[in-house]
C-alpha cells in the first residue's frame, strides 16, 4: 500500500513542539534520530546540546503529510533551522499509518 514518508530535520529545541504537531494532525507514530549538519543557518554539530539537530520521520497518508508540512512551514520556517521533504513509500500494513 502506498503512503507518504515525511522527513523533517530541525533543531533539537523543537522536539516537543514537533511531536505535538505530528500527533495533533492524526499521524499514528513517528521516529526520531539524532543528527547534525549544515544549511542556511550554519553548521549544527551534536557536541553541544544547544546546537544539535533531530531528524523526524512520519509515515502517514498523503494529505496528513502535506498538512503537517504546511503547519511546520508556517510556524517554524522563518525562525528555525529546518528542512523537510516528502517521499513515496510502500508499507505492508496500511492500517498502522
Amino acid at each position, binding site marked *: 500500500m502506498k503512503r507518504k514518508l515525511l522527513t523533517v530535520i530541525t533543531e533539537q529545541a523543537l522536539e516537543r513542539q514537533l511531536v505535538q504537531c505530528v500527533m495533533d494532525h492524526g499521524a499514528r507514530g513517528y521516529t526520531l534520530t539524532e543528527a547534525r549538519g549544515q544549511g542556511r543557518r550554519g553548521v549544527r554539530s551534536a557536541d553541544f546540546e544547544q546546537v544539535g539537530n533531530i531528524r523526524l520521520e512520519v509515515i502517514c497518508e498523503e494529505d496528513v503529510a502535506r498538512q503537517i508540512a504546511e503547519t511546520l512551514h508556517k510556524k*517554524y520556517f522563518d525562525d528555525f533551522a529546518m528542512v523537510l521533504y516528502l517521499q513515496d513509500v510502500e508499507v505492508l500494513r496500511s492500517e498502522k499509518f
Partner: protein
Amino acid sequence: MALARASNGWRTEEGPALGPARALCYDQRPRVSDKEIPLELDPVILFFLLGLGAGLMRAEMRLPAAVYELLTVILLLSIGLKGGVELAGADLARILPKLGVVAAMGIVVGLMGFAILRLSPRLPRADAAAIAAHYGSVSVGTYAVAIAFLDTLGVDYEAYAAAFVVVLEVPAILLGIVLVRGLRPSVGWASVMHEVFLGKGVVLLLGGLLIGVLMGPERLEPFEPLFFDAFKGVLALFLLEMGLVAATQAGALRRHGVFLIGFALLFPLLGAIVGAVFAWGLDLTLGGALLLSVLGASASYIAAPAAMRLSVPEANPGLSLTASLAVTFPFNVLVGIPLYYGVLSVVYPGVGGGA
C-alpha cells in the same frame, strides 16, 4: 560574617566538628600569603586553554555530548551539595531577603545590557533582549572556576553563595521575554515558566542545595570522593570541553562584527561592578563579593539559550551564544576572575566591604 566559611576545609565557625582525620585530608592545599597578588593562572584554566587550542587547530578530538552531560550534572550537583552543606544550620530568615536582592540584581544587569544594546541601530529589539537575557543570567561554569580560584587562594566566602546562582539564573530570562513579548507571551506563561524553571541548572542546583541542607556535612561524607574530592578534576575535563566548544563558535565571530565582540568584552566589566556594588550593599565578605561580581559578569550558555530559542525564536541564537561562549566565557575565565579579584582586594576593604 556569621556564615563565612573556611573555603579550604569543612569547618564552620562552630569549630572543627569533623575532627583531625578530616582536617588531615583537607588542609593540604597551599595557601598564599595575604601579601601576594595572585594574578597567575589557576591550573584549571590551562585545561580550558588546552581545549581551546586543540579546537582552534582542529585537532581530532571531541568529547561526546554524553560526556558533557555527565560532567555538567556532576558539577551542578557538587556546587549545590557544597552550598547546601554549608547552609545546613544557617539562619534562613536572614538569608532569604538577601537572595531576593540578588535576584533583583539579575534584572538590573539585564536592563543595563538591553539599554546598551539598543544603542546599536542595526540590532533588532528581539536580539537585544535575547542577548540581555543571557548576560543578566549566569554561567555555572564560570562560577565553578571562581570557586576553584578562591579555594586555591584560601579565601573565604559566604556559605550560601551557591544559592546566588540559582536565584540569578531565571529573572533576566523572564525579563528578556517580557521585553519582546510584553506581559502576554505568545506561547503562554505556563510554557515559559516550565522552560525557565525546569532546566537542569535550576533543578540540579536546587536539588543539591536541598539535599545538602537536609543531610548536613556528616551524612554526606560518603559522597565526598565523587562530588567534592574529584571536583577540580571534573571541572578540568569540563573546561577542556568548553574550550573545544568555544573554538567551534569562534568561526562565527567574524560574521557578527565588532559591536558584538566589544559588548561581550566590555559588558562583563560593568556586570562585575554591579555585582560588587550589590555585594557591598549586602555586606558580603571579599570572597562573596568576588563571586557576585563574577556572576554579574558572566553570561548564560545553557538556560538562556534554551529558553530564548522557544520564547523569542525570532532572535538569532548565534549572536548570543557566540558572544557568551566564544568571548565572555574565555574572557572571564582567563582575565576577568583574577582581574576582578585584584581590584576588589584593593578597593573593597577600602570602602568598608567585607569588614
